[in-house]
């Protein structure tokens, strides 16, 4: 499933650029996994998804892995604080963690000196990615639930 999501990220969502910002469905997948299955699953999904993503982009391999792993773990805190899910709280959490995830990516790039500059455009990217993730989250909730629940049954 991660391969499919990655393929969507590198094809369709690379071209759909509202306000000249590309949607981050890999981040959304990780955040949805974290929110539904906790810190551990969120971190693992994030690390694996990030590593896959790193192999198709030009940034150093492993960088996205760390950032998305952190984002997945952060999303997993939702279950820690709110064990009984509330739908609108989930949406708020997705918005917050998506924004934090983008900040993680930004910070990770800055840490290895990739020329990340804090400018107004960064805020726009965070805002647009957050809005898109909230919009797409119902579908991705269903996808992550189906994907990860399937794995549980086979075990």
């Amino acid at each position, binding site marked *: 499933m991660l391969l499919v999501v*990655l393929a969507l990220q590198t*094809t369709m969502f690379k071209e759909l650029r509202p306000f000249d910002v590309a949607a981050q469905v890999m981040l959304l997948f990780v955040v949805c996994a974290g929110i539904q299955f906790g810190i551990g699953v969120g971190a693992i999904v994030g690390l694996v998804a990030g*590593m*896959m993503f790193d192999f198709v982009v030009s940034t150093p*391999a*492993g*960088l996205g*892995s760390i950032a998305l*792993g952190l984002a997945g773990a952060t999303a997993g805190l939702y279950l820690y604080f709110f064990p009984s899910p509330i739908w609108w709280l989930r949406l708020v959490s997705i918005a917050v963690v998506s924004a934090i995830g983008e900040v993680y990516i930004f910070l990770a790039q800055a840490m290895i000196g990739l020329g990340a500059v804090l400018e107004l455009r960064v805020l726009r990217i965070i805002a647009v990615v957050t809005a898109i993730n909230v919009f797409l989250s119902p579908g991705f909730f269903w996808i992550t639930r189906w994907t990860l629940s399937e794995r549980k049954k086979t075990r």
Partner: protein
Amino acid sequence: MASQNTTRRRAIILLTLTSIMLITLDLQDSPKVAGLRSIFGTLFYPVEGVARVITRPVGNAWYGVTHYNKLLEENSLLRQQVAQQEGATVAAAASVRLSQELLALNGLPTLAGINAVTAQVIGESPTSFSQTIEINQGAESGIRVGMPVLNAAGLIGKITKVFTNRSFVMLITDPDFSISVKVVSTERKITGSTVQGITSVTTSTAVPLEPVSNTPDSETTTTTTTTIPIEGFTAVVTTLPATPKGLTSITIPLASELAVRETGVIQGNGPTRQPTVRFIDNSLRFGSIEAGAPIVTAGGSRSLAPPDVLIGVVSRVVERVGSAGPLLEINIAAELTNLSFVRILLYQPITEKKSP
């Protein structure tokens, strides 16, 4: 449950360490990371290909929705460029012909010496009956009634009403529009006499030339004619064959045989019909007029436009019986449906100028 957590924890630690190691290796430009990328790319490529095929319609729809205005702007810009190119092509073709006259007559009045004002089109005609546009420059910029208006491709009309900061331009297609024009002949052969005793002569032309016929005469006179097919008409140049003694010769075209023009009056016929040129002499001096012949303004002391402003090319010749002469339908070089910026030549014929 505890063992599951331990496994997860180990997996997280392992993946994190792997990531850190990969970052370190990749920043060192390790070939191993490059190899891993290559392997992953090979495996991922088919999946990505399928996804691209499936999602392409979505991407196209999105592009159509979000870039529609940009597409319109781009289309408009391209139309302008095409008009400019078409005008330039015809103008270049006419220039080849004119250059021979200029060489012989040592200069003719050109547009270079005439001041011009650039204006933006701010409105179209409020009625369906007149072909006019409104521009944002007026008397303050020196614009007067009758001045010719051009765009990048050629003549588009003339000023018909002037206010302080705006003016109205009557387009060529307006039925009330008329101006004297001349038709540049499309094919001619020049003969001339030769001046000998010149050791080196250089001829230069704007287009690559390939001689079609090359027939040097003997001894004292040499007549050489080269015909170059150029879109719209055929230009003529002379070549200089070297004599056996190492001398070269120049062919000077006879003044009486320089490019002859037929004059007439262009009149608009509305937006849906092409303008026509009337009052062409029935007995043409340079033979028959053919489609593609450039039409330029005639100039003269009474004409509102200076000479040699490009208007368009002949698209059809309608022969008429009697002494009326042929009627020429004109394909205008400028695209009148998509005007954004125009240039007003601050030109007034001598007869219109007020003496100080």
